[in-house]
């Protein structure tokens, strides 16, 4: 049944697919994860603050980002970031951000909203008495957060954070709407060029599946290993 197919095309394009495509996808995933978790944690702290000046903007931001389709955000940021960047540094012309940095910024800002909700749940899972104990020792807000609350919240939430990262890894394939050569983009280009759509898209699906599945398998094991003894 596969007689009409040419699976050699995969082997021939492997270096391109992985060296160009997968490198981009993984770099984007890693940077957006790091940025998203840092920004998301700050958002979560702001959202849990009792001061309206912090919690209202944070809640608005998170809800807005979570209500807009990712593709739209990608489009908007791709066209907006150069203008906003230019406006910030006071340049008259939009600055050149480039597809890569534009995607990093977009995904960081978008995923931060999701990481924020995870970290918010994590922070709230820490007993109030832990905060009291930190304060009673003379630690200030940032020290109590940094030494007592966040390390525990982060550890409690690590499996969920990683699961969100697996989703992020899959979501990065949406950058193909900007004609960026990520893993899917690279495969699409070969597929169009050689007219081997079925073979390439099958292969891409298998690769995404293997990576995502082994990551979630790893997360499950990690979950059992890192639990804090209480």
């Amino acid at each position, binding site marked *: 049944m596969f007689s009409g197919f040419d699976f050699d095309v995969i082997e021939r394009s492997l270096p391109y697919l992985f060296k160009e495509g997968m490198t981009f996808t993984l770099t984007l995933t890693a940077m957006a994860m790091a940025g998203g978790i840092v920004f998301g944690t700050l958002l979560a702290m702001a959202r849990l603050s009792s001061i309206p000046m912090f919690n209202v903007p944070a809640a608005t931001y998170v809800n807005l980002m979570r209500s807009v389709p990712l593709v739209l955000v990608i489009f908007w940021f791709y066209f907006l970031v150069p203008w906003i960047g230019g406006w910030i540094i006071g340049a008259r012309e939009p600055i050149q951000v480039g597809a890569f940095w534009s995607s990093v910024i977009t995904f960081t800002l978008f995923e931060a909203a999701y990481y924020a909700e995870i970290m918010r749940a994590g922070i709230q899972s820490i*007993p109030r*008495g*832990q905060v*009291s*104990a*930190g*304060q*009673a*020792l*003379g*630690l*200030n807000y940032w*020290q109590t957060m940094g*030494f*007592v609350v966040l*390390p*525990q919240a982060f*550890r409690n939430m690590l499996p969920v954070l990683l699961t969100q990262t697996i989703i992020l890894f899959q979501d990065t394939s949406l950058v193909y709407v900007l004609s960026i050569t990520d893993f899917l983009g690279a495969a699409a280009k070969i597929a169009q060029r050689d007219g081997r759509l079925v073979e390439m898209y099958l292969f891409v699906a298998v690769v995404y599946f293997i990576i995502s599945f082994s990551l979630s398998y790893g997360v499950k094991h990690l979950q059992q290993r890192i639990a*804090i*003894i*209480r």
Partner: protein
Amino acid sequence: MPMIEFKNVSKWYDRFQVLTNCTTKVEKGEVVVVCGPSGSGKSTLIKCVNGLEPFQSGELVVNGESVGAKETNLSQLRSKIGMVFQHFELFPHMTVTENLNLAQVNVLGRSVDEATAKSMMLLKRVGMEDHAPKFPGQLSGGQQQRVAIARGLAMDPIAMLFDEPTSALDPEMINEVLDVMVKLAQEGMTMMVVSHEMGFARKVAHRVIFMDRGEIVEDATKDDFFGKPRSERAVQFLSKILHH
């Protein structure tokens, strides 16, 4: 000048009043036991001392500083007052030594070596030196509470607050914690202790405060409180808890 002085301290949760015109004081070197039925506001009272619970009216002066005042640096004041909690509240992601070192290093600015030396000295004092590298989850309740006391002492506090330190413990572990507290009291530490351990109160307390419904009903020397309690409520309370 008293170490801790309450002047008409009142506190409300919305419209529910939890503390009503509380006035009392703790002198330097004095051990004061606060008792009373549950919900009487004794934990709230003690948590006002280091500002963990804000209050709405009255004045509370600790070591010459007004706790409720805006210009008071609460973190700095707290670092001078040790606190021991009902549920220990050790940091579960840190070893025993790290628990003791954390605030010494980050609040008092001691070097790690200096802090560790101090921690080991205190762990020895509470009989926990062998458990220094362990995590709190590997210790029994009584052991955790002794570590928590050492954590408070590591800051060289001018006073120690105890919020029901033995009420979450299994009966056979209560004494190991009380022994540490008795020793501390005998060494002259200023202590304010919320507790139902009347044996402890009889042994080391100078004064006993009895609270009911947010009010300080009785504030007497130990002998007066146990010998001739003046209020009907204190009599009832004592008969209930001393019955068996």
